[in-house]
């Protein structure tokens, strides 16, 4: 469901009947995910998923509205080409100051393919650490954990890069492209300190799907400036069959996806300027400063003693930053 611009919210609709059908009249009913209401999934056997086939989606919402998409043809996808990076500098959108980092690029070689429209989804994962293990804490009395608990010291954060990367090669002589710019990883964040991994998922799209995502990209990034263009009024391929005047936002696409993962442990010549958020607080008035709502209150210390210095969660708990302390299985060390 759509939300106001001032407060964009993800409003899933639960309890829809959703099915996908192909151009051979096979139908695949989707099941709503248990963990994420409003997300529907289906496993379709690979025999039905040959490139060149077309698919469409039918949705019946709980209030009985029927939504149907056009057929979208699934083109074949070439292998993901080289993904690499170079040191780059951008102007920070927060501080207005220039900041260094690395910009990723991808090469595309689709010379043997008919697909001319591509989209890349980027997922980044990086390791980060908090400054202290969990060793001493106070919850009315002082406790000592020995050996110190290192389980919350190292974490890995995985997130989708929320930019759209689309490319059409129709204006090019050859179905190739080199050095297509992807995302930027700044040295002012924790990304490039202990290891960084990039998953590139390359999708070949139909022309309609490309045009939808490319227009979304333009509306999301390409406006403004002296010679600004009009925002585009983007129409997807979904139609409200119950009330044809009612606009349906979004696009149903059938894509073939290939992926590649690269790993960076150290960037030559780039100085990391990340300082972290941990600020230990000196307890000048002793434990009186700690209230029960702070329990367990972590304290700085060594093997033998604790100090009257309070360590908040951003110093001792890497989960606090949204990552996971379970090492991803693709992590090389």
């Amino acid at each position, binding site marked *: 469901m*759509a939300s106001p611009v001032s407060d*964009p919210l993800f409003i899933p609709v639960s309890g829809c009947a959703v099915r996908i059908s192909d151009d051979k009249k096979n139908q695949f009913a989707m099941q709503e995910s248990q963990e994420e209401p409003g997300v529907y999934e289906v496993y379709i056997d690979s025999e039905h998923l040959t490139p060149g086939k077309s698919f469409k989606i039918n949705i019946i919402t709980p209030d009985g509205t029927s939504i149907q998409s056009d057929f979208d043809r699934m083109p074949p996808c070439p292998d993901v080409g080289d993904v690499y990076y170079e040191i780059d500098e951008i102007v920070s*959108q927060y501080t207005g100051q220039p900041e260094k980092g690395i910009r990723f690029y991808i090469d595309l070689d689709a010379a043997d393919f008919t697909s001319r429209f591509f989209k890349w989804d980027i997922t980044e994962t990086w390791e980060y650490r908090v400054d202290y293990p969990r060793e001493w804490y106070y919850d009315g009395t002082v406790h000592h954990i020995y050996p110190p608990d290192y389980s919350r010291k190292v974490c890995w954060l995985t997130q989708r890069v*929320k930019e759209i990367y689309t490319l059409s090669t129709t204006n090019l002589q050859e179905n190739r492209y080199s050095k297509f710019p992807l995302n930027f990883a700044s040295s002012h964040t924790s990304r490039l300190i202990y290891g960084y991994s990039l998953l590139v998922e390359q999708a070949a799209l139909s022309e309609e799907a490309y045009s939808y995502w490319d*227009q979304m990209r*333009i509306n*999301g990034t390409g406006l403004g400036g002296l010679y600004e263009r*009009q925002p585009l*009024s983007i129409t997807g391929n979904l139609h409200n069959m119950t009330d044809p005047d009612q606009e349906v936002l979004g696009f149903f696409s059938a894509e073939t996806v290939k992926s590649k993962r690269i790993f960076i442990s150290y960037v030559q010549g780039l100085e990391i300027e990340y300082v972290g958020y941990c600020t230990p607080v000196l307890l000048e008035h002793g434990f009186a400063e700690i209230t029960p709502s702070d329990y367990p209150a972590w304290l700085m210390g060594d093997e033998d003693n604790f100090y009257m210095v309070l360590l908040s969660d951003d110093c001792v708990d890497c989960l606090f930053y949204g990552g996971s302390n379970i090492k991803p299985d693709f992590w090389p060390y």
Partner: protein
Amino acid sequence: MDCHLKNSTFKEFSGLVFDQTGVRIFYRDEWVDKLKITLDAYSVAVSEALTRILSGSDLKVSEWYGDLVVLPGGGLLAELPAYAQIADKDVLPVKKKEAMTASEERYLTGRGSGVTQTIIIGRPGENVANNRVKALGRVIDEETGEPLHFVAVYITEAKTGVVTDVNGFFNLTLMPGTYNVQIEFLGYARKKYLFEVYSDDSFVLRIRKTAVELKEIVVSGERHANIRAKEPGFDQVSMKSIKTLPMLMGERDIIKISATLPGIVTVGEGTAGINVRGSSSDQNGFYFNKIPVYNTFHLFGFFPAFNSDIIRDLSIYKGYVPAKYGGRLASVFNVTSRQGNRKLFTVHGGISPVSANLVFEGPLKKDTSSFLFSARSSYSDWILTRIKDPTISNSSAGFNDFSLGINRDFRKTQLSMFFYRSYDRFSLSDLNSYDYYNNGASIILGHNYTNALRGEISLAGSQYGFSTIDRQQPPSAYRHAYKMGHYEIRADFRHVLNEKSTLEYGSEMIFYLLDRGTVLPYGEMSLRNKIELGVERGIENSLFITHQYDISSRINLNLGIRYMVYNPVGPTSTCKYMEGAPRDPRYIEDTLIFGRNSIIRWYHEPEIRASLNFETDRDGSVKLSFNQMHQNLFMLNTITTVAPNTQWKLADYHLLPSRSNQWSAGLFRTLPKNGLEFSAEAFLKLTRNYSEFRDGADFLSDDPVETAVLQGNHRAYGLELYIKRSRRKLEGWISYTWSRSFIQVDGNHSWFRINNGEVYPSNFDIPHSLTAVLNYYFTRRVFLSSILTYQTGKPVTYPESAYYADGSPYLDYSKRNFHRIPDYFRADFSLTLEGDLRKNKFLHNSFVLNLYNATGRDNAYSVYYRTQNGMIRSYKYSVIGVPVFTATWVFKLGNYVSD
């Protein structure tokens, strides 16, 4: 008169008097041969000067029929017919028919300023039948010898006025007799003449600049011009009139100043292009000495592409457009340069923070031929390097322009040649670079066949081109060069039939050659396809005639017709689409090939132009007009402003010429006592085949242009109010325009619709626009001027809701132009310190301190949204959101008034 004599003879004095004022002094040599005259006076009345000279002698001066008689002893007897007879035979070439009126007498003997000069037109006895006299006059600057344009010549008795043309000519048709004539022209001393009209003749009036009447902003050539001018929706801005207005970075922009007049707006800073009466900017035709100019701005629209120092005036037709002009729906802007000093060589120039300019002019042959050369160049990069953003500090921008005008008068023929070039470049860091140019030349040959028939043949050519290099991403980097040519030959005749009727007729032929260029890969890395966008040719032929007819002394009718035939011509090829199907590459059925010079389509239709001017009384008039226009080319512009790489496109097999009908009605009134002038005009303009662009239109792709262009209807209407105060310590004008501008693109297939076929406001729909231009004179040499501008914000398309796709929020946008950006307000001030006003000096200096956007208001140029890191952020983009202070030094050889 001015008199600077030392030990001169009386004869020299009387010669001086006659030269300056036309007043004759009658005397006998033996009476005055002993007189030695020493007199140093400015603006002294002749009679007073004479009295002073003769004091101490026994001679007395008497006034006699407008001339002066010096007699020993007593004065002249009131009636002395015999003497008059003798004088007639000996001195006067003609017999006077009427005595002077009391007021005329006052000019001779009374106040110092204003002396009536008699002009004798024809010879008595030549016009036995007492027919109407056709006279051809010319107004020339006494000091520089340049012919003067837009000088108002008013015949008091006939209650009619005429305005001089570019070569200073004007026609009169009068019954024989004596007439009081006033001449008014901004920056020149007001002058009165007595015309004694006998038979057909031509004559020259010389007027001189005045350093005294400094405080004057006159936008319409003359106080009464509004009442008498026969064309509603006509404005004229003379360069002198904007001498006192604030500037940005020391550059004075006559075209932007026109946006202070009602009905004309610009949509914010940095917009090249202006919108007249709710119309798009490609509907204005700009001509510089008859050269069509397709890009009138330097540097993103901040500066005019013309050197202000050589411009004499700008005339704007936006309501009734005479039939001799065509090809643009909204307006015609005629920029006229000066012709150059015909007596002396002069140099002047100016230095501002961004540019320097130099003008050099002088006679080629004294009194008959002159040249005017100008050059201007910018050195603005130092401003850019001071900006923090590395993208901008690594950018560079620059412009220059040159012009050369040559004029020559033969006996009855005038030849003018004009050459013009402007050039602009800018590169944005290493991302992209642009350059563009205008090149033009015109040759105009004017001839006076008779005193009532004048013809002009002109040849003009203009080329506009740009090239772009886009290297933001090496694999898709490209370069593209575009150029277009406009070549025309035209003949104009002006034929005065009698005192009530004048015909203007002629023909025009234009050849358009648009080379849309080739998109080429740039750099070794680029994989870009080579795309040839093709060459287009078009021929526009027109015949036109206008009849100006005075139904009575108060009612005047202009009725014109222009017949235009437009043909796009080959060689070219055009796609044919399936009947009724969208114009989409998928529906191409066939390709039509047209050979060299073969005609692709015939477009022809008459255009009716009519205006009626009704003078309600001495100080007021009502004007009505109807105006039909056609336009055969338009800009391919998906953005709201005019970018330097905007292509022009001709109407062709698929895209039709647009046409419009405009109705306007106006009310004009002057209150001479208060120095006030007021006008109100209402208009309605309906346009068909107005070109709009499909979403995401890309004009550098393989797809034919017609797949991205849709033609619809445009409707604009509004009310324009204007009030002006002149010749006061506080003077200026205020204009307010209420107008709306809507577009509807509603074809019979959903493909041919924009905004679902619903009406939407155009990008330049500015309902309220208020401008105040005010000057305050502390002294004649120190004055403060200001321009205050308020406008409703321009329409934009805003997001109305947000939704999630693939885990990120995205925006769903409103119907086209459903919202508006915040209102615009800006206040500019300038303080001018003129050097002293001595008449005879080597160098004149002035210093101008300017404050642009004094309130520092962060006017939104656009408001837009971006999705960044999965968050929707809104941004406001301002071009100049801070006050900008500049100081400019202007110098010129000569005094304040010299050009």
